[in-house]
């Protein structure tokens, strides 16, 4: 646990109970980084980079764009953690939850940009798509359908889109989604259900 110690630097203090092992490790890493341990910072970023990238890449045009969004998410989460730790104990910093929330919000704001929104999502993975370009008619049809579905995802109501992408892209359980979005697990499941139904409707109407 880190508190204000001598001067302005937080100090590490061991606390027992109250959190899972992973959560405690994360707290220790965060506290170590805040007292100047850059390696702890690297470990924390490595631990969550895939999750953050998976949440933002749907809205990115290029791989660089996706990486910049991920970087901004980390920066904001670390700054929020630092500000909070200046005021209170380390237990008050659910870093992973904040990171998910920040990444989701950043992605949402990014999507609001009309110019980017018009783009077919995930141009970031264009290279991979070219590598596995469809050859037959059936494959071509499926690829077109995939594009329509991805466009339709961006047309979903915000909460439905958040739940859908947290589950499909971030591979979070519904209980984790509920925690991240400050809702109930059942509400998250219902939103997911409605998202799927809406996608079916949108892509049926959209289909030629």
């Amino acid at each position: 646990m880190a508190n204000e110690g001598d001067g302005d630097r937080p100090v590490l203090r061991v606390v027992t109970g109250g959190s899972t092992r992973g959560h405690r490790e994360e707290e220790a890493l965060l506290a170590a980084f805040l007292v100047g341990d850059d390696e702890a910072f690297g470990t924390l970023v490595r631990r969550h980079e895939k999750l953050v990238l998976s949440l933002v890449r749907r809205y990115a045009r290029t791989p660089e764009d996706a990486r910049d969004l991920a970087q901004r998410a980390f920066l904001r989460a670390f700054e929020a953690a630092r500000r909070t730790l200046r005021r209170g104990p380390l237990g008050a910093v659910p870093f992973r939850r904040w990171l998910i929330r920040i990444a989701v919000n950043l992605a949402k704001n990014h999507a609001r940009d009309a110019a980017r929104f018009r783009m077919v999502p995930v141009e970031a993975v264009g290279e991979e798509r070219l590598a596995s370009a469809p050859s037959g008619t059936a494959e071509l049809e499926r690829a077109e359908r995939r594009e329509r579905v991805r466009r339709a995802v961006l047309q979903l109501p915000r909460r439905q889109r958040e739940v859908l992408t947290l589950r499909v892209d971030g591979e979070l359980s519904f209980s984790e989604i509920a925690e991240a979005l400050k809702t109930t697990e059942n509400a998250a499941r219902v939103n997911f259900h409605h998202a799927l139904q809406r996608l079916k409707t949108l892509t049926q109407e959209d289909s030629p």
Partner: protein
Amino acid sequence: MNRECRELEVMRTTAAAGDLSGEEAARLEAHLVACVACREALARDREMIDLVRLPPVGATESLLLADLPARTLSALKRRERRRGLFRRYLAGAAVAAAMVLALLTPAVLRNHPSRIIPAPPAATEVAWQEPDLDTLWSESAVLDSSTGSSSTGSTISDAVLDAYDEGTGI
């Protein structure tokens, strides 16, 4: 679709997402055995989720991610430096402003003495005058009672005195 199918819709999409377990999974499984419509719906749900799913992170993205911790750390430190400089600049500006104020204030007061507005008096002072003793006596209740007693002879003081006189036999 019957009533049970509708009741199990959310469970079905949760199962399609791969996050249904325990009693709920068993209940849905039992229903699916008997319900062709729900089996088909589940297959459509799974297909839709598969269409939503992005391709896995490729080589280019992996390569870019390799330096994410270092880039983020340097960006964070850059921000801190900028913030530190800004704070120092603000503190310096505040000190300079205080010094300029301290230097200029006496000169301003010297050059514009009329601008110093005296504070208004707290209250109007009234000069003390010695009271007229005759007026004071004439207005005094003590004097009135003594004069009254001499005329009527019925004040308390007089009664006490009368009793005293009788007791002592003066």
